[in-house]
């Protein structure tokens, strides 16, 4: 429980306070970062390479046990991670990958439903190598969502996909998040992707939050004036000059 400006208690899915992480003693990757994510909120995290995006995500995922640092992190019970590579176990068929570690007699049915949701019905018995890159990533999404996460962490999940597949995956992810309402932290280097997907875009610089903007768009299309304004704002903050962004 946290308190907002009016003194009311509000619930948060993620609370990070004064988070420090460093890989060597010369300089920190995260330098006193604060961040709150509300339940069901979709936050995109952008920033140049080396600004600590992945470090933050791995800290929230609990995957940074060997990294030096301090700070306070609160995350929900159920956290799922989607990586840039699908990380499907190559020796397990798609359905077995999705339900890996799930308990209960209905695990297989839940897995089948999840696969159907991501449009992979009928591929339950396929080996991972038989799927295309986009399909593998959809299976990885199914594996995450079948666990009904309260927080979904995604580290450039579409980074390795081609542009067309990526557009389809954006639509799918928005649909899935609308249906399941997890809090989402999506790391991306793509400003457009961040604006298309997120309720809020956070820009990380030198290990702290530099910009935190709300995306209030009725139509998430590039021709929208607000879209263009946000895009310009964020690209300015990232230091991309006029020439390069055309």
């Amino acid at each position, binding site marked *: 429980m946290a308190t907002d400006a009016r003194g009311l208690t509000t619930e948060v899915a993620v609370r990070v306070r004064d988070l420090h992480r460093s890989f060597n003693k010369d300089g920190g990757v995260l330098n006193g970062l604060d961040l709150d994510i509300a339940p069901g909120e979709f936050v995109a995290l952008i920033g140049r390479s080396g600004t600590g995006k992945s470090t933050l995500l791995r800290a929230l995922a609990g995957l940074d046990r060997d990294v030096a640092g301090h700070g306070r992190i609160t995350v929900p019970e159920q956290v799922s*991670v989607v*990586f840039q590579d699908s990380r499907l176990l190559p020796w397990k068929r798609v359905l077995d990958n999705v339900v890996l570690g799930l308990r209960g007699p209905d695990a297989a049915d839940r897995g089948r439903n999840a696969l159907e949701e991501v449009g992979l019905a009928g591929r339950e018995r396929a080996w991972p190598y038989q799927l295309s890159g986009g399909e593998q990533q959809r299976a990885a999404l199914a594996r995450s969502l079948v666990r009904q996460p309260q927080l979904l962490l995604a580290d450039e999940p579409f980074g390795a996909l081609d542009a067309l597949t990526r557009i389809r995956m954006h639509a799918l992810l928005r649909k899935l998040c609308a249906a399941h309402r997890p809090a989402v932290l999506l790391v991306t280097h793509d400003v457009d992707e961040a604006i298309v997907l997120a309720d809020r875009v956070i820009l990380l610089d030198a290990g702290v939050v530099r910009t935190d903007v709300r995306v209030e768009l009725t139509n998430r299309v590039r021709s929208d004036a607000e879209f263009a304004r946000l895009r310009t704002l964020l690209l300015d903050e990232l230091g991309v000059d006029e020439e390069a962004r055309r």
Partner: protein
Amino acid sequence: MTATLHTPEPQVLDRVDERVVRRRLGPGRRIRFAFWIGPALVLALWSAGSATGVITPAILSAPWDVVVAFEDQWVNHDLLGNILSSLQRAAIGLTLGVVTGAVLAVVSGLSRIGESLIDGPIQIKRSVPTLAVIPLFIAWFGIDQEMKIITIALISLVPIYIHTHNGLRSIDGKYAELAETIGIGRGEFVRHVVLPGALPGFLLGMRFAVTASLLGLVVVEQYNAVAGIGHMITLAEQYGQTDVIVVGLVIYGVFGYCADSAVRLTGRRVLAWRQTLEG
């Protein structure tokens, strides 16, 4: 052509199929009975050599003489009993060795303490020739079945351990990371990630272990055996029966080859998830 276009019969022969096909660099498609072609060729050469007199009986008995000796052993000297006795020894010893080797490899592969306790002694055991240890084993376990099975188990344990350990440690660390994020326990991690991931290594170890167990068999059956192929060879040696020795060798060869083929076929089945040149 215009007239035939509407007939239901497809003009398959006229269909154009022009392709640009690259030269294949991998081994290509499988040949039927590929497992038997090489050995059959060796047998053919042996027969031809013996028939033409290039291979004299003093060097190597002719295949047909071996067949006669085989029949003689089968009818008059309980060859089947010898074979079963040897197979039983090898199977029990191999099973013990494989199970122990795999368990030790997993323990040593997944725990640093296990590694420091297990890995060294096994490497030391590996560099000590088994033949040299047998006198000691005789002192410890006597000259009966127990000593023989333990020797075979120890010989086959080493390759299983080495290859399973190596296979396990070669598993991509990102899968362990994934397993951590989906919150499975150590038992499930071993079952779903470690064992299947180490399986290719284990199967390679298995191929070595199978032949190692036969090697152990030959050695231990020279000691106080009353039955077994090694026993039969030892007797034949004393009576100068080269044809009987060759019968024994052929049986060892067939054992080894069949067992190896079985492991490879199993491997092809259970490793269907891989896309390799094995095909």
